[in-house]
């Protein structure tokens, strides 16, 4: 019998624990020609703001050892135009999670108000960790109190699942995670990108127009895994783990560390079919080791392990 891959995040029942990471999957359509998106545990769309954003000037991305820096700057068409794209995702049999961003508490609220009318939207991922915008973004994610106030303000606005996306650029991510849990988050997702930069030695200036950018990809996996381990130990709500996941083995590491689900970002760029490959790989891992359900391995490296 095939192992049970279902997991619960808030009041979402996911058919499997694998979803794309926000900003790395557009509004879904770009990857729809590679495979049937219905196979995903969920679809997570790009950071969406109340009004359209042009984003940062190029150069916006650069490669780094086993990773990449990006400074997209939340380019998006604004929530109204985004809704048109999001509605198309109804065609797929999987929940849609919208990544919500803003400069102010009010802006986050505005986005949610508009999205509340969309029945395609199952959950919100509140982005308090974008390192590539001047106002808002990461500023909300580096202080537990500010993060908690934002979440408390958003909580009454929706019955849908509220996921809070945490920044790794902090001294103690558990502090922020606990604060948003108390403030009413149904789940946390981590990590967003690590703030980094690159310099072009020939032109003697930063490679990215924005100077700094967010680091992601395999390079950050050890940091992400450590944070997922710490946060899932401290919290009662589920954790969606991400940061460098590029194959099934990586995904299993995050599940064993305590993540209830995982998200895959930059690896989509290298391998457009990575998400279904990871889903299959997790299933194979469970079968090979005789687990009946993926839920049996969540946090197993913490609680059991043959030490």
């Amino acid at each position, binding site marked *: 019998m095939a192992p049970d891959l279902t997991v619960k995040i808030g009041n979402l029942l996911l058919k499997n624990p694998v979803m794309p990471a926000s*900003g*790395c*999957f*557009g509004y879904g359509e*770009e*990857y729809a*020609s*590679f495979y049937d998106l219905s196979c995903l545990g969920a679809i997570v769309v*790009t950071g969406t703001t109340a009004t359209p954003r*042009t*984003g940062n*000037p*190029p*150069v*916006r*991305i*650069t*490669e*780094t*050892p*086993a*990773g*990449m820096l*990006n400074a*997209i700057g939340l*380019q998006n068409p604004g929530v109204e135009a985004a809704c048109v794209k999001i509605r198309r995702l109804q065609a797929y049999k999987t929940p849609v999670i919208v990544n919500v961003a803003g400069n102010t508490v009010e802006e986050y609220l505005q986005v949610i108000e508009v999205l509340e009318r969309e029945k395609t939207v199952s959950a919100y991922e509140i982005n308090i960790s974008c390192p590539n915008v001047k106002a808002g973004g990461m500023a909300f994610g580096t202080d537990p109190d500010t993060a908690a106030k934002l979440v408390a303000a958003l909580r009454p606005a929706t019955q849908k699942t509220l996921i809070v996306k945490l920044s790794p650029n902090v001294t103690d991510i558990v502090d922020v995670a606990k604060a948003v849990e108390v403030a009413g988050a149904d789940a946390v997702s981590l990590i967003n990108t690590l703030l980094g930069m690159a310099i072009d030695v020939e032109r003697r200036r930063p490679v990215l127009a924005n100077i700094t950018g967010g680091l992601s*990809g*395999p390079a950050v996996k050890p940091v992400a895994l450590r944070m997922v381990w710490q946060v899932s130990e401290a919290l009662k709500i589920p954790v969606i783990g991400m940061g460098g996941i*590029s194959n099934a083995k990586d995904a299993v590491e995050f599940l064993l560390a305590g993540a209830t689900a995982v998200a895959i970002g*930059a690896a*989509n*760029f*290298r*391998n*457009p*079919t990575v998400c279904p490959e990871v889903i299959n790989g997790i299933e194979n891992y469970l079968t090979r080791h005789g687990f009946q359900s993926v839920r049996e391995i969540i946090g197993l490296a913490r609680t059991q392990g043959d030490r």
Partner: protein
Amino acid sequence: MMQKRQMEILEHTQLTEEIFRLTLAGGIGAKPGQFVQVGLGPTWEPFLNRPFSVHNCTKTTLSLLYRVVGHGTRLLAQKQRGSILSVVGPLGKGFPPTKRRQAVLVAGGIGAAPLYYLMRMLRAEGKDVIFLYGAKTAAQIVLEDEYRSLAREFYLITEDGTAGTKGLVTDLLPQILGENEAEIFACGPNAMLRAVAQTAAEKKLPCFVSLEAQMACGVGACLGCVVATADGNYRRVCADGPVFAAEEVFRFGS
């Protein structure tokens, strides 16, 4: 259709010190001006795929023409016949169909890559093709015979005069265009494209340019590869291009 394929290297030829031609087994049904993303695995570094234009495409093969400029292309150049590469594509929109009888193709250096396939397709449609091939120096001109044999008129121009005329493509372009009712297709360094676009604008001829940008996904999802358009917006080179109408990306005078 856009797909990820595992393709075997049929032929990998070093044409000059820096330029290689790579032929892979398998048809991908690309249009001229489209490109593919090539994986350099199995290591996690380099992490991103590398974009290369379709240099030629048949029912059973895909050819790339590339120049070694850095880490990734250096690794690519080491791949042996028989090895398997991961190839994503065809990507992008490619060159638009032309309604005019005559097409003027302007290549700058390795920018010649996509124009071979374009020329082949235009010739198949019975168009009249003028090919203008510019480079820094003779050593950077590759496959001259192949290009020459397909073109009705073929011009070579190098900055140092080591092959063909001495000068820049835009020195020759106005004469070639003459009073013709041509359409221009160009690929090469940005400065060249801008100059070609300016000439085209002066002559009021339609002009399409194929752009390059740092890419991550290549499929339009990451918004990493944008170019600022003349109207101040950003468009994705991968999904909205890589071919753009010249006036969309270059603005002159005003």
